[in-house]
Protein backbone atom coordinates (compact mmCIF):
# COMPACT_ATOMS: atom_id res chain seq x y z
CA UNK A 1 0.00 0.00 0.00
CA UNK A 2 1.12 3.48 -0.67
CA UNK A 3 0.02 6.83 0.60
CA UNK A 4 0.31 10.04 -1.40
CA UNK A 5 0.02 13.50 0.14
CA UNK A 6 0.58 16.98 -1.22
CA UNK A 7 2.86 19.03 0.98
CA UNK A 8 3.58 22.55 -0.19
CA UNK A 9 5.27 22.36 -3.53
CA UNK A 10 5.77 18.64 -3.68
CA UNK A 11 4.02 15.31 -3.48
CA UNK A 12 5.06 12.89 -0.79
CA UNK A 13 4.49 9.24 -1.60
CA UNK A 14 5.15 6.72 1.16
CA UNK A 15 5.64 3.12 0.18
CA UNK A 16 4.62 0.48 2.71
CA UNK A 17 6.58 -2.65 3.52
CA UNK A 18 5.47 -4.93 0.73
CA UNK A 19 5.13 -3.57 -2.73
CA UNK A 20 3.83 -6.20 -5.12
CA UNK A 21 3.89 -5.86 -8.88
CA UNK A 22 0.34 -4.52 -9.21
CA UNK A 23 0.80 -2.00 -6.42
CA UNK A 24 4.01 -0.79 -8.03
CA UNK A 25 2.19 -0.23 -11.32
CA UNK A 26 -0.70 1.49 -9.51
CA UNK A 27 1.80 3.79 -7.83
CA UNK A 28 3.27 4.77 -11.17
CA UNK A 29 -0.23 5.48 -12.48
CA UNK A 30 -1.37 7.49 -9.48
CA UNK A 31 1.79 9.53 -9.26
CA UNK A 32 1.70 10.66 -12.86
CA UNK A 33 -1.99 11.62 -12.52
CA UNK A 34 -1.43 13.49 -9.29
CA UNK A 35 1.55 15.29 -10.76
CA UNK A 36 -0.73 16.67 -13.45
CA UNK A 37 -3.77 17.50 -11.29
CA UNK A 38 -1.93 18.86 -8.26
CA UNK A 39 0.30 21.10 -10.32
CA UNK A 40 3.48 20.21 -8.55
CA UNK A 41 6.83 19.63 -10.11
CA UNK A 42 8.44 17.33 -7.62
CA UNK A 43 7.67 13.93 -6.12
CA UNK A 44 9.41 12.63 -3.02
CA UNK A 45 9.20 8.86 -2.89
CA UNK A 46 9.86 7.56 0.61
CA UNK A 47 10.84 3.91 0.41
CA UNK A 48 12.42 3.56 3.85
CA UNK A 49 9.95 0.82 4.87
CA UNK A 50 10.69 -1.17 1.75
CA UNK A 51 13.11 -3.94 2.67
CA UNK A 52 12.62 -6.42 -0.16
CA UNK A 53 12.83 -5.53 -3.80
CA UNK A 54 12.84 -7.56 -7.01
CA UNK A 55 13.80 -6.72 -10.55
CA UNK A 56 10.26 -5.72 -11.45
CA UNK A 57 9.84 -3.24 -8.63
CA UNK A 58 13.31 -1.93 -9.36
CA UNK A 59 12.37 -1.28 -12.94
CA UNK A 60 9.09 0.39 -11.96
CA UNK A 61 11.04 2.77 -9.71
CA UNK A 62 13.20 3.68 -12.65
CA UNK A 63 10.13 3.97 -14.91
CA UNK A 64 8.40 6.30 -12.45
CA UNK A 65 11.33 8.68 -12.50
CA UNK A 66 11.52 8.65 -16.29
CA UNK A 67 7.74 9.09 -16.70
CA UNK A 68 7.66 12.03 -14.34
CA UNK A 69 10.71 13.52 -16.04
CA UNK A 70 8.84 13.47 -19.36
CA UNK A 71 6.07 15.45 -17.70
CA UNK A 72 8.56 18.00 -16.45
CA UNK A 73 8.67 16.63 -12.94
CA UNK A 74 11.44 15.38 -10.74
CA UNK A 75 11.59 12.35 -8.47
CA UNK A 76 13.63 12.06 -5.32
CA UNK A 77 13.88 8.61 -3.81
CA UNK A 78 14.35 8.83 -0.06
CA UNK A 79 15.57 6.40 2.58
CA UNK A 80 16.55 3.42 0.50
CA UNK A 81 17.65 0.59 2.81
CA UNK A 82 21.10 -0.98 2.31
CA UNK A 83 19.71 -4.44 1.36
CA UNK A 84 17.52 -2.82 -1.30
CA UNK A 85 20.48 -0.86 -2.72
CA UNK A 86 22.61 -4.00 -2.76
CA UNK A 87 19.89 -5.99 -4.52
CA UNK A 88 19.39 -3.31 -7.16
CA UNK A 89 23.14 -3.13 -7.78
CA UNK A 90 23.40 -6.92 -8.02
CA UNK A 91 20.52 -6.92 -10.48
CA UNK A 92 22.43 -4.39 -12.55
CA UNK A 93 19.74 -1.73 -12.09
CA UNK A 94 21.55 1.53 -11.59
CA UNK A 95 18.45 3.71 -11.86
CA UNK A 96 20.13 6.26 -14.11
CA UNK A 97 18.96 9.82 -13.67
CA UNK A 98 17.20 9.10 -10.42
CA UNK A 99 17.88 11.47 -7.55
CA UNK A 100 18.30 10.02 -4.10
CA UNK A 101 18.48 11.38 -0.56
CA UNK A 102 19.32 9.76 2.73
CA UNK A 103 16.42 11.25 4.65
CA UNK A 104 13.29 13.25 4.07
CA UNK A 105 15.07 16.20 5.63
CA UNK A 106 17.91 16.04 3.13
CA UNK A 107 15.37 15.84 0.31
CA UNK A 108 13.57 18.92 1.58
CA UNK A 109 16.82 20.85 1.90
CA UNK A 110 17.54 20.03 -1.70
CA UNK A 111 14.01 21.03 -2.74
CA UNK A 112 14.21 24.39 -1.01
CA UNK A 113 17.48 25.17 -2.68
CA UNK A 114 16.16 23.90 -5.97
CA UNK A 115 12.88 25.84 -5.74
CA UNK A 116 14.79 29.02 -4.94
CA UNK A 117 17.06 28.61 -7.92
CA UNK A 118 14.05 28.03 -10.14
CA UNK A 119 12.30 31.20 -9.13
CA UNK A 120 15.30 33.40 -9.70
Amino acid at each position, binding site marked *: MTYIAKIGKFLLATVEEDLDDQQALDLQDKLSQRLESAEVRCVVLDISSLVIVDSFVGRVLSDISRTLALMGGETI*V*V*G*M*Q*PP*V*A*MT*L*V*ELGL*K*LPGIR*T*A*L*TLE*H*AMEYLEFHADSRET
Partner: protein
Amino acid sequence: MSKKDAKHLGDVVSQILEESKDELLATWFQELKTGEANAEGNLRQRELKNESERFMKLLDTTLNRTDLSTLDDNDPTWDEVREYLARLAVNEAGRGASLTETVAFVHGLKVPLLEALEEKASSVSELSRLFIEISRFFDRLELHVTRNFQIGLDEIIRRQQEELMEVSIPVIKLWGDILVLPLVGVLDSERAEAVMEKLLFQIVETQSRTAIMDITGIPVVDTQVAQYLVKTVTAVRLLGSDIIISGIRPRIAQAMVHLGLDLSHIKTEASLVDAFRAALNWSGQKIVESET
Protein backbone atom coordinates in the same frame (compact mmCIF):
# COMPACT_ATOMS: atom_id res chain seq x y z
CA MET B 1 32.34 -71.43 24.13
CA SER B 2 29.24 -71.95 26.24
CA LYS B 3 26.86 -69.16 27.06
CA LYS B 4 27.90 -69.21 30.70
CA ASP B 5 31.56 -68.70 29.89
CA ALA B 6 30.89 -65.84 27.57
CA LYS B 7 30.54 -63.23 30.25
CA HIS B 8 29.19 -59.94 29.16
CA LEU B 9 32.09 -57.57 28.90
CA GLY B 10 29.95 -54.76 30.25
CA ASP B 11 29.28 -56.75 33.43
CA VAL B 12 32.97 -57.52 33.86
CA VAL B 13 33.98 -53.91 33.34
CA SER B 14 31.32 -52.50 35.59
CA GLN B 15 32.38 -55.04 38.22
CA ILE B 16 35.94 -53.83 37.92
CA LEU B 17 34.80 -50.22 38.07
CA GLU B 18 32.92 -50.89 41.28
CA GLU B 19 35.49 -53.09 43.01
CA SER B 20 38.69 -51.28 42.26
CA LYS B 21 37.53 -47.78 41.45
CA ASP B 22 40.19 -46.08 43.52
CA GLU B 23 43.13 -48.07 42.14
CA LEU B 24 41.87 -47.52 38.62
CA LEU B 25 41.58 -43.80 39.19
CA ALA B 26 45.03 -43.68 40.74
CA THR B 27 46.69 -45.51 37.83
CA TRP B 28 44.72 -43.59 35.27
CA PHE B 29 45.65 -40.38 36.96
CA GLN B 30 49.28 -41.45 36.99
CA GLU B 31 49.06 -41.91 33.24
CA LEU B 32 47.65 -38.43 32.82
CA LYS B 33 50.15 -36.75 35.09
CA THR B 34 52.38 -34.65 32.91
CA GLY B 35 51.95 -31.07 34.05
CA GLU B 36 54.52 -29.19 36.11
CA ALA B 37 54.10 -28.65 39.82
CA ASN B 38 53.35 -24.94 39.61
CA ALA B 39 50.06 -23.31 40.50
CA GLU B 40 48.69 -23.68 37.01
CA GLY B 41 49.81 -27.29 36.84
CA ASN B 42 48.13 -28.05 40.14
CA LEU B 43 44.93 -26.48 38.99
CA ARG B 44 45.06 -28.55 35.85
CA GLN B 45 45.70 -31.70 37.87
CA ARG B 46 42.68 -31.04 40.03
CA GLU B 47 40.58 -30.40 36.96
CA LEU B 48 41.75 -33.65 35.39
CA LYS B 49 40.95 -35.52 38.56
CA ASN B 50 37.41 -34.16 38.60
CA GLU B 51 36.94 -34.95 34.94
CA SER B 52 38.24 -38.50 35.25
CA GLU B 53 36.01 -39.21 38.24
CA ARG B 54 33.02 -37.84 36.41
CA PHE B 55 33.77 -39.83 33.29
CA MET B 56 34.17 -43.05 35.25
CA LYS B 57 30.91 -42.54 37.06
CA LEU B 58 29.16 -41.86 33.78
CA LEU B 59 30.66 -44.99 32.25
CA ASP B 60 29.52 -47.01 35.25
CA THR B 61 25.94 -45.80 35.13
CA THR B 62 25.75 -46.43 31.40
CA LEU B 63 27.19 -49.93 31.73
CA ASN B 64 24.53 -50.82 34.26
CA ARG B 65 21.99 -50.33 31.52
CA THR B 66 23.73 -51.73 28.49
CA ASP B 67 26.81 -53.56 27.21
CA LEU B 68 30.08 -52.23 25.80
CA SER B 69 29.51 -53.73 22.39
CA THR B 70 26.33 -51.72 21.88
CA LEU B 71 28.33 -48.50 21.53
CA ASP B 72 27.83 -46.98 18.15
CA ASP B 73 26.90 -43.59 16.80
CA ASN B 74 23.17 -44.06 17.12
CA ASP B 75 22.49 -45.97 20.31
CA PRO B 76 20.68 -43.52 22.63
CA THR B 77 21.87 -45.31 25.78
CA TRP B 78 25.33 -43.95 25.05
CA ASP B 79 24.14 -40.40 24.47
CA GLU B 80 25.33 -39.17 27.85
CA VAL B 81 28.84 -40.56 27.41
CA ARG B 82 29.04 -39.21 23.87
CA GLU B 83 27.81 -35.79 24.88
CA TYR B 84 30.20 -35.67 27.80
CA LEU B 85 33.18 -36.53 25.63
CA ALA B 86 32.09 -34.14 22.90
CA ARG B 87 31.90 -31.29 25.37
CA LEU B 88 35.26 -32.24 26.84
CA ALA B 89 36.92 -32.33 23.42
CA VAL B 90 35.47 -28.98 22.35
CA ASN B 91 36.55 -27.40 25.65
CA GLU B 92 40.06 -28.79 25.33
CA ALA B 93 40.30 -27.46 21.79
CA GLY B 94 39.17 -24.05 23.03
CA ARG B 95 41.73 -24.17 25.83
CA GLY B 96 44.46 -24.66 23.25
CA ALA B 97 45.28 -28.24 24.27
CA SER B 98 46.82 -30.57 21.72
CA LEU B 99 44.89 -33.42 20.15
CA THR B 100 47.33 -35.94 21.67
CA GLU B 101 46.71 -34.55 25.12
CA THR B 102 42.96 -34.72 24.66
CA VAL B 103 42.86 -38.26 23.32
CA ALA B 104 45.30 -39.33 26.04
CA PHE B 105 42.60 -38.56 28.58
CA VAL B 106 40.38 -41.36 27.31
CA HIS B 107 43.30 -43.55 26.37
CA GLY B 108 44.69 -43.31 29.89
CA LEU B 109 41.82 -45.37 31.26
CA LYS B 110 42.37 -48.19 28.83
CA VAL B 111 45.67 -49.47 30.27
CA PRO B 112 44.63 -49.78 33.94
CA LEU B 113 41.36 -51.31 32.83
CA LEU B 114 43.14 -53.94 30.73
CA GLU B 115 45.49 -54.70 33.62
CA ALA B 116 42.59 -55.21 35.98
CA LEU B 117 40.89 -57.37 33.40
CA GLU B 118 43.71 -59.86 33.50
CA GLU B 119 42.71 -60.98 36.98
CA LYS B 120 39.08 -61.36 36.07
CA ALA B 121 39.38 -63.62 33.07
CA SER B 122 39.11 -67.36 33.69
CA SER B 123 40.88 -68.52 30.53
CA VAL B 124 43.32 -67.24 27.93
CA SER B 125 40.77 -67.37 25.16
CA GLU B 126 38.34 -65.34 27.21
CA LEU B 127 41.04 -62.88 28.11
CA SER B 128 41.87 -62.30 24.45
CA ARG B 129 38.20 -61.88 23.62
CA LEU B 130 37.79 -59.29 26.38
CA PHE B 131 40.97 -57.57 25.23
CA ILE B 132 39.75 -57.24 21.68
CA GLU B 133 36.35 -55.96 22.70
CA ILE B 134 37.66 -53.44 25.14
CA SER B 135 40.21 -52.18 22.60
CA ARG B 136 37.46 -51.77 20.06
CA PHE B 137 35.37 -49.92 22.60
CA PHE B 138 38.17 -47.49 23.39
CA ASP B 139 38.99 -47.02 19.72
CA ARG B 140 35.45 -45.85 19.13
CA LEU B 141 35.60 -43.49 22.06
CA GLU B 142 38.91 -42.04 20.87
CA LEU B 143 37.57 -41.57 17.36
CA HIS B 144 34.61 -39.76 18.82
CA VAL B 145 36.91 -37.48 20.83
CA THR B 146 39.06 -36.77 17.77
CA ARG B 147 36.04 -35.90 15.68
CA ASN B 148 34.74 -33.47 18.26
CA PHE B 149 38.15 -31.95 18.86
CA GLN B 150 38.20 -31.14 15.15
CA ILE B 151 34.72 -29.62 15.39
CA GLY B 152 35.98 -27.46 18.24
CA LEU B 153 38.97 -26.33 16.18
CA ASP B 154 36.79 -25.54 13.17
CA GLU B 155 34.56 -23.44 15.37
CA ILE B 156 37.56 -21.46 16.62
CA ILE B 157 38.80 -20.84 13.08
CA ARG B 158 35.35 -19.72 11.97
CA ARG B 159 35.06 -17.33 14.88
CA GLN B 160 38.50 -15.87 14.26
CA GLN B 161 37.72 -15.35 10.60
CA GLU B 162 34.58 -13.49 11.60
CA GLU B 163 36.49 -11.33 14.07
CA LEU B 164 39.18 -10.62 11.52
CA MET B 165 36.51 -9.57 9.03
CA GLU B 166 35.02 -7.29 11.65
CA VAL B 167 38.26 -5.50 12.57
CA SER B 168 39.37 -5.24 8.96
CA ILE B 169 36.49 -2.94 8.03
CA PRO B 170 36.83 0.20 10.09
CA VAL B 171 34.20 2.78 9.22
CA ILE B 172 35.02 6.02 11.02
CA LYS B 173 33.11 9.24 11.31
CA LEU B 174 35.68 11.82 10.34
CA TRP B 175 33.76 15.06 10.49
CA GLY B 176 30.13 16.12 10.69
CA ASP B 177 28.53 13.97 8.06
CA ILE B 178 31.70 12.61 6.49
CA LEU B 179 32.57 8.94 6.92
CA VAL B 180 35.95 7.49 6.10
CA LEU B 181 36.74 3.87 5.33
CA PRO B 182 40.49 3.22 5.21
CA LEU B 183 41.05 -0.16 3.59
CA VAL B 184 44.25 -2.05 4.27
CA GLY B 185 45.40 -5.40 2.96
CA VAL B 186 44.31 -7.71 0.21
CA LEU B 187 40.71 -7.25 -0.81
CA ASP B 188 39.11 -10.50 -1.95
CA SER B 189 35.55 -10.64 -3.18
CA GLU B 190 34.21 -11.88 0.15
CA ARG B 191 35.78 -9.00 2.01
CA ALA B 192 34.79 -6.54 -0.70
CA GLU B 193 31.18 -7.59 -0.27
CA ALA B 194 31.41 -7.23 3.50
CA VAL B 195 32.95 -3.78 3.01
CA MET B 196 30.05 -2.69 0.84
CA GLU B 197 27.49 -3.97 3.35
CA LYS B 198 29.17 -2.39 6.37
CA LEU B 199 29.61 0.94 4.60
CA LEU B 200 25.99 1.08 3.44
CA PHE B 201 24.63 0.31 6.90
CA GLN B 202 26.95 2.84 8.53
CA ILE B 203 25.92 5.54 6.06
CA VAL B 204 22.25 4.99 6.86
CA GLU B 205 22.90 4.78 10.59
CA THR B 206 24.95 7.97 10.78
CA GLN B 207 23.12 9.69 7.92
CA SER B 208 26.37 10.76 6.38
CA ARG B 209 26.20 12.60 3.11
CA THR B 210 29.73 11.80 2.07
CA ALA B 211 31.84 8.68 2.40
CA ILE B 212 35.54 8.50 1.60
CA MET B 213 36.99 5.14 0.69
CA ASP B 214 40.76 5.27 1.04
CA ILE B 215 42.48 2.41 -0.75
CA THR B 216 46.10 3.48 -0.20
CA GLY B 217 46.68 0.28 1.75
CA ILE B 218 45.47 -2.04 -0.97
CA PRO B 219 48.35 -3.63 -2.91
CA VAL B 220 46.46 -5.23 -5.81
CA VAL B 221 43.12 -4.94 -7.49
CA ASP B 222 41.73 -7.59 -9.82
CA THR B 223 38.67 -7.43 -12.09
CA GLN B 224 36.32 -8.73 -9.45
CA VAL B 225 37.43 -6.28 -6.79
CA ALA B 226 37.33 -3.38 -9.25
CA GLN B 227 33.81 -4.47 -10.13
CA TYR B 228 32.92 -4.37 -6.44
CA LEU B 229 34.30 -0.85 -6.11
CA VAL B 230 32.01 0.25 -8.93
CA LYS B 231 29.06 -1.55 -7.34
CA THR B 232 29.77 0.06 -3.99
CA VAL B 233 29.82 3.51 -5.56
CA THR B 234 26.49 2.84 -7.28
CA ALA B 235 24.87 1.47 -4.11
CA VAL B 236 26.05 4.42 -2.02
CA ARG B 237 24.54 6.81 -4.55
CA LEU B 238 21.24 4.90 -4.42
CA LEU B 239 21.10 5.54 -0.69
CA GLY B 240 21.34 9.25 -1.39
CA SER B 241 24.90 9.70 -0.24
CA ASP B 242 28.06 10.27 -2.23
CA ILE B 243 31.44 8.61 -2.23
CA ILE B 244 34.99 9.62 -3.03
CA ILE B 245 37.71 7.04 -3.64
CA SER B 246 41.14 8.23 -2.63
CA GLY B 247 44.67 6.90 -2.71
CA ILE B 248 44.58 4.93 -5.94
CA ARG B 249 48.19 3.86 -6.40
CA PRO B 250 49.88 4.05 -9.82
CA ARG B 251 49.84 0.32 -10.40
CA ILE B 252 46.20 0.03 -9.46
CA ALA B 253 45.27 2.97 -11.67
CA GLN B 254 47.08 1.28 -14.58
CA ALA B 255 45.40 -2.04 -13.83
CA MET B 256 41.98 -0.43 -13.73
CA VAL B 257 42.54 1.23 -17.07
CA HIS B 258 43.82 -2.04 -18.53
CA LEU B 259 40.74 -3.84 -17.27
CA GLY B 260 38.69 -1.45 -19.36
CA LEU B 261 36.40 -0.41 -16.54
CA ASP B 262 34.44 2.77 -16.98
CA LEU B 263 35.28 4.71 -13.86
CA SER B 264 34.65 8.15 -15.29
CA HIS B 265 31.61 8.78 -13.10
CA ILE B 266 33.45 7.89 -9.93
CA LYS B 267 34.89 10.76 -7.96
CA THR B 268 38.51 10.19 -7.10
CA GLU B 269 41.13 12.18 -5.25
CA ALA B 270 44.87 11.65 -4.90
CA SER B 271 45.04 11.40 -1.14
CA LEU B 272 42.82 11.18 1.89
CA VAL B 273 43.62 14.83 2.63
CA ASP B 274 42.42 15.94 -0.80
CA ALA B 275 39.32 13.79 -0.47
CA PHE B 276 38.54 15.29 2.93
CA ARG B 277 38.98 18.78 1.56
CA ALA B 278 36.70 18.00 -1.40
CA ALA B 279 34.08 16.51 0.91
CA LEU B 280 34.11 19.60 3.10
CA ASN B 281 33.84 21.73 0.00
CA TRP B 282 30.62 20.01 -1.07
CA SER B 283 28.99 20.74 2.22
CA GLY B 284 30.15 24.35 2.06
CA GLN B 285 32.82 24.09 4.71
CA LYS B 286 36.55 24.64 4.62
CA ILE B 287 39.57 24.44 6.83
CA VAL B 288 41.26 27.76 7.65
CA GLU B 289 44.36 28.52 9.62
CA SER B 290 43.67 30.22 12.90
CA GLU B 291 44.36 33.95 13.00
CA THR B 292 46.41 33.97 16.15
